[in-house]
Each structure stands twice: as structure tokens, then as C-alpha cells.
């Protein structure tokens, strides 16, 4: 008797179960850590997963937390599907937030129906522009985008920091925090007395549109072909460079919208901490969602839940919020390992030969 692993595609019905398996494994693996901080893991996971959904306010808070992740997850997925490894959503988000601030500041006296689209558009355009140099370098000079997009993240963050410590420093408090954008540019709340804002609807709409583009249009099929087999795509007469460029820029634009949405929906003024790594978490979301938009939506909501849960746990049981981060990171590693299993099968039984 023995267990063997061999290379053969796992049966199809297993695939949707793999993310669930990953979650389960993550909980098993992190149980020790949770116990180490002196908490019963079952209680902790109850607060982690169930408690946030039990109350109306915390359930809505899950959606609030999921909003930027829906956007960055969608952005990263779109690029990945087109075969462009955009690790720069974080920087594109900062670029978008900065442009949204600049435009939002100018919207004093402009009606909302104009001011809000202007802010969103500013975020999109800035994201596109921030994504442009590495995308061009990739397409024209074959310079690896993983490195360039990643490096530009720090550039964006330092740029914002310079702005906030220079021209945009709050004149009164002297905090590195920009003035507030015009009231008319602020996203309306979807439900009164919660933080849920227009950005959530925007994110859902963008996910639907991207799903449609990827799965139902000629461009989407070409883009998938380029992502899955660039040589075959070129052979078929698809303009590979143009397709990659489009995927990269749209991805950057949507990451920029994530920045605009956080700015005009939550913070109203630009701060350095406007993103606690949403751009990077977007990569987790995209991977967890197995690069399809429905999966991305579920993954973003799930991470939103864990984020909220981490706070609930720490509030209720007095454990550090960082525990949530550790669990998230474990989840990514486990998911990546588990996803490999779709190419393998585990067999029990008598060995032969």
C-alpha cells in the first residue's frame, strides 16, 4: 500500500473545490499559531468567518473592505489573462489616487454628476499612464515587466510621499495629508450611516464588463490566445504586441480607478497609507480566483471577510491584527500549492511495476 502522486489531470469536478480545500488547509496550518497566542482556534475562526457576517454593519463592512480588492483583483486578472505579468497595480493605484485628488481639488462648485466622473476618469488615465512605460518597454524592447512594474510601485509611493511632504502638506495640521477634495466630488454612500460607497457598484460593474470582454468578445478570445500561447497567437495573425499593450494599460487604468475609489469613497484626502497593499493583495485575489472574473469577485469578498474578521477577532479576543495578515499569506501559499494539484492525481493502493 502507498500513496503516489502522478502527473495526470485531476477530474474536473475537483477544480471548484480546490480553493475551498485551500481554505481548510490554511486553517489547519495556522491553528497552531492561533493557539500560540492563547486562543481556541475554533473560537477564533468563528470570529474570523462567521461573526462578521452575523451583523448588518459588519457584513456591509466586508463589502467596503472588498471594494478596492475587487478592482485591483480585476485589474491584475485582466493583465494576467493577456499574458502580461502586471505586479504594479499598487503603484498604478497610487497614481490614480493622486490624479483623483488633483482633479477632486479643482471640483469646488462643479455639480456631482460632472465631478464624480471626472475624478474616476482622472484615476483611470493616471493608472494608464503609470502602466505605460513598463508596458512599452515590454512590447518594444522585451524588458521583463515583472521587474519594471514592481519597481515603479516604490517610485509611486515615494512620489506621493514627496507631494504630501511638499506642495500638498496640510497647511494647518502640518500632517503629510492633502487638503480634502471638493464635497461634490465625494462618492455618495449607498447605504446611509455605513461606509459603503459608489465605488462598490463601480467595481461590480467593471468586473461584469471585463468578464464580458474576456469571455464574449473577439478581443477577449484573442487576448486569451495571446496569454496562453503567444507563438500560436502570432501564427494566427493576432497582433500580439498590441494585445499585450491593451491588456497592460486597461489593467493599469482599473488599478488607478481603485485609487480614485478609495480616495473619493473613503479618505477624501490623499494620505500615504491610502493603500495597505491593495495592489499586491490584488495578485492574491487574481490567483485565488483562478484568473476568472467570477472567481475574482468571490476571492475579493472572501479576503474582505478575513480582513474584517481579523479586526473582529482582535477586538473580541485581544489577539494582534497581524494574525489576519499571517493567515492571508498562508492562504496564498497553500492556494498556489493546491492549484498545482489540478495537474496531478493522488492514488492510493497497491503498487505495480
Amino acid at each position, binding site marked *: 500500500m502507498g500513496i503516489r502522486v502522478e502527473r495526470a489531470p485531476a477530474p474536473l469536478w475537483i477544480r471548484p473545490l480546490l480553493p475551498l480545500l485551500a481554505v481548510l488547509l490554511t486553517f489547519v496550518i495556522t491553528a497552531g499559531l492561533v493557539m500560540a497566542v492563547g486562543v481556541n482556534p475554533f473560537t477564533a475562526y468563528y470570529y474570523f468567518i462567521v461573526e462578521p457576517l452575523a451583523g448588518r454593519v459588519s457584513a456591509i463592512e466586508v463589502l467596503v473592505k472588498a471594494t478596492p480588492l475587487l478592482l485591483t483583483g480585476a485589474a491584475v486578472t485582466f493583465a494576467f489573462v493577456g499574458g502580461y505579468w502586471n505586479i504594479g497595480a499598487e503603484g498604478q493605484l497610487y497614481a490614480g489616487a493622486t490624479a483623483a485628488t488633483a482633479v477632486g481639488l479643482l471640483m469646488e462648485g462643479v455639480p456631482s454628476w460632472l465631478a464624480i466622473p471626472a475624478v474616476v476618469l482622472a484615476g483611470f488615465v493616471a493608472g494608464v499612464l503609470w502602466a505605460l512605460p513598463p508596458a512599452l518597454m515590454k512590447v518594444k524592447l522585451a524588458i521583463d515587466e515583472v521587474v519594471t512594474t514592481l519597481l515603479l510601485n516604490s517610485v509611486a509611493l515615494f512620489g506621493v510621499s514627496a507631494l504630501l511632504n511638499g506642495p500638498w502638506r496640510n497647511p494647518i495640521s502640518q500632517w503629510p495629508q492633502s487638503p480634502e477634495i471638493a464635497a461634490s466630488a465625494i462618492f455618495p454612500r449607498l447605504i446611509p450611516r455605513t461606509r459603503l460607497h459608489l465605488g462598490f457598484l463601480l467595481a461590480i460593474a467593471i468586473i461584469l464588463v471585463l468578464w464580458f470582454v474576456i469571455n464574449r468578445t473577439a478581443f477577449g478570445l484573442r487576448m486569451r*490566445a495571446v496569454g496562453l500561447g503567444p507563438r500560436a497567437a502570432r*501564427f494566427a495573425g493576432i497582433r500580439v504586441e498590441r494585445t499585450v499593450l491593451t491588456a497592460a494599460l486597461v489593467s493599469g487604468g482599473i488599478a488607478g480607478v481603485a485609487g480614485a475609489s478609495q480616495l473619493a469613497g473613503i479618505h477624501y484626502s490623499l494620505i500615504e497609507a491610502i493603500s495597505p497593499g491593495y495592489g499586491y493583495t490584488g495578485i492574491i485575489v487574481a490567483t485565488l480566483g483562478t484568473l476568472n472574473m467570477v472567481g475574482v469577485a468571490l476571492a475579493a469578498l472572501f479576503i474582505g471577510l478575513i480582513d474584517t474578521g481579523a479586526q473582529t477577532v482582535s477586538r473580541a479576543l485581544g489577539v494582534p491584527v497581524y494574525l489576519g495578515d499571517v493567515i492571508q499569506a498562508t492562504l496564498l501559499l497553500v492556494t498556489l500549492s493546491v492549484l498545482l494539484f489540478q495537474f496531478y492525481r493522488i492514488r492510493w493502493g497497491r*503498487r*505495480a*511495476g
Partner: protein
Amino acid sequence: MDTSRSASVPAVEMRGIVKRFQDVVANDRVDFTLLPGEIHALLGENGAGKTTLMRILYGLYHADQGEIWVRGQPATIRSPKDAIARGIGMVTQHFALVPPLTVAENVILGHTSGIRVDLAEARRRVAAAAQRLRIPVDPGARVRDLSVGERQRVEILKALYRGAQVLILDEPTAVLVPQEVEALFASLRRLRDSGLSVVFISHKLHEVMALCDRVTVLRQGRVVGTVSVAETDRNTLARMMVGRLIQPVSRPAHPAGHRVLLRLDRLSARDDRGLLAVKEVSLAVRAGEILGLAGVSGNGQTELAQVLDGTRPAESGRVLVDGQEVPTGDPVALMAAGIGRIPEDRHESVVAELTVAENMVLEHLDEFVRNGTLDREAIHRHAARLIQQYQIRARPEDPIRTLSGGNMQKVILARVLERAPKVLVVAQPTRGLDVGATEYVRGKLVEQRERGAAILLISEDLDEILELSDRIAVIYEGHIVAILSGEEADPERLGLLMSGAALRAEARPPGGM
């Protein structure tokens, strides 16, 4: 080793091997006996289970049932390491070499003890082994600079260097040119005479007849029989494989038209290393004509085919389709001009993860768009129709990577022929295909010729060239060195021209165009 015993004891005995993949039974109670000092062919159609059986022997797969005996001892082979320890080596269809390393480094890789490697010593030992086994390789050469045939020799040397007494070769000749095949066969015969057992997988019956001592035929996972080559013939073997008679493609006499549909005018192109690989090639192919392009691999055929399929721009010269100049390096323009393309490497012309239906429309997506969205219904219908028409064993929604080589080639063929192209550029169309599929593909090409297409057939399979071509051009080091009519060509003459030996003898300029 006790030689007196080894003469009677089989080198390998596989008994009752069963292997299932999901619902496919790839091997169904297979018995296989390999004697010491014999070359034993495994024959069978695509998907018959040959590779699976040998992968089990080499430890890459595990049998669901059955047992393996090596030199009279029961053996449990769980990995290639176990197999190598028992003197079994395998050269697979895809080589496992490290291109930037030298031949010697590749040969000793994974076969070293300790951490330090004395490379000079290794090179000497590998050179000695190569000499002793009479496998001509240069131990100091980098693998990335070697031709496919040379790489294969390195793989064989690697296996023997590790003490293989059983050598498994999975379709070794699929990638070789006639001269290389001859050299390989000579090596294998010598090695056999010195006691090596060889399992030789091939689809080419004449190779099996020329090289092997015994043949085991598989059909749909089962053994049809094991026969001695001396007591059988090609027709019998073909019938055993397919379960019916195979007729060679008949090519009715048929005068070529006058219109030149494809003209290459002093066409030159560079290879990936930037060296000139196609040198001022001028050719003309008329309507209703198959022009075969024969040559030893690496003489510019690949680059020429790529110029004509749009994946490689020409350095200079012109391509004219039906009198109109077409820009090179642009698949869309070439397709629009009426060129149908069957490329050398099937796997680089389809997107493995996309479905059969999607791959069938990828080149002409715009025709399957309605109101800005993909007309998925039409795409499905289109695929279903082609699948039926071309007898492809697949469903429209299957990912194309799950198809056998023969069926994948039929998809590519269907995708191209369906548009009734004026010109067909066909490279290695039957490489790796079994007799049935080969017959089918060649039949289709002849059909296209009848229809009036101009066909440029680039093939390293001389039999194929001779069987199908109205005229034959020979390419050597990027030059067209001769153009013969189908009647005046024979294997010896072509072989001579292909090797460049006849270059000075036939100093007259290439006849006709």
C-alpha cells in the same frame, strides 16, 4: 554478469500490464518480452499505448496491474532512477538536455558522485565512451548549437554511459533526415551485436523491416501479436496495426495548370542566430501542382516555411501569390492573399488550452462576431461541421491539447482547407502520425492538387516527397541546388543532391524555375 544465462533469460519481461487514464485503457493486459541483443519494434496507431508501456518500464508511469521482470528478477520500478539502476535507459520524444551546457556536462549530469566535478576528466571519459560505442559526438560542443540528430546521439550516449543494457527509443526517427536515420541504424545494429537490447518505436514500416528483429503490434492498448520480422511483411504489419488494409495514396496523372500561383523571387531570410539561412531562393508553383522541397534538416527549410507562414520576415526578395506581391512577416496579409499554412510544429500553431472550436476560428475571428460579441453558436456549428467532415475524433469544446497528434493535424488541416486556399504551404505534414492518419493527410493534399491549388510541400520524409510531388526541388545550405521532375527523381539521386555532394557534378544552373 552471467552471460551463459543471459542468452536464454529475457532482458525485460512485462506481464499483464494494465494502465488506465480516467476512462481510457492505455494498456490492457499487455505482455511484452525483450530478448538480450535484439532490436524489438513496438508498432501501433496513434494512441495505441506504445509510449505508455515504455514509460511504465522507465518508471515515469506506474502500472495499475502487472509485473516487470528484468533479467529474470522481479523488479519494482518506481522512478527513472530505479530504471537506470536496472540498466534501462530511455530517449523520449522530447529531449531532456540542458542547452547551455556542453555534451560532456550533459552526459555526466546527475551521474556524478560528490560535489566537485572534474570537467576535463569528465570530457575525457565521455570522449572515450563515445569512441568505444562509436557514437560520433563532440564532447566539448554546447548542446544548444547541436542539430536535432546530434542531440539525439547525446541522449543515447547519456543512457549508455549510465550502463543501460536496454535502450528505449520513442520515435527516434521522427526528427531525423534520411542520412541521420542511416547513421542511427548503423549505430543501433553495432550496439545490438554487442549485446544491447533496443525497443524501437516508429510509425514507419520500412524502418521496422530494415532494422528490427521482432515486432510487437499494439492496437487500442492490447497486444495484437509479436512476430519475427523475417517472417512478415509490411502489408501484414499494417493490417495488424489498423485492422484493415492500407492502400498507398493514388495520385492520378494530372497536368499542372499554367498559372503560377506561388512565386518566390530571390527570397532570402535569416535564422534565429541572424545567419543567412535562405539564400536567394527562386521557385514557382503552378496551379494543380505539388512541388516537393527536399533537404536535410537545417538547410533553411524551416526558415523558408516560416517566411511563407508569416512568422518570419524575409531579408530580401519577394513572395508573389497569383502575381501579386505579398508582404512577408504578416500572417494576415499572407492568409488574405490566399495562402493556407500547415506549419512544421503543430504545437506552435494551436493554443493548447483553448478548445478545438476556438482554435478553428482563431485566424478569422471577425467572421464570427455578431453585434460586437462572439457568435458562440456559429463557432460551435462551424467546429461540429468540420469535425464531421474531416472525421476528427474530438468534441468542439475539448481543449485541443487533449487531442492525439493525428487529430490535432486534422484540425489544422480542416481550418486551412475549409477556406479553399489558392496556395498551400505544407511543412512536415505527417511527422509523428500513424499510417492511417498519414494516408488521410496525404490523400487530402492530393485532393487539393486536383482542385487546382498550388502546393509547396516541405518534407524531410523522402518517401513522402517522392510519393506526392510533381516536381522536386532540393535545398542545400539555403540554396536550391536542383529541380527535378517527379519521374527523374529517385532516392539515391535526391540523397546525393541533399548531401551537397552533387553540387559540383551537376554544375548546370537549376533547371526551369
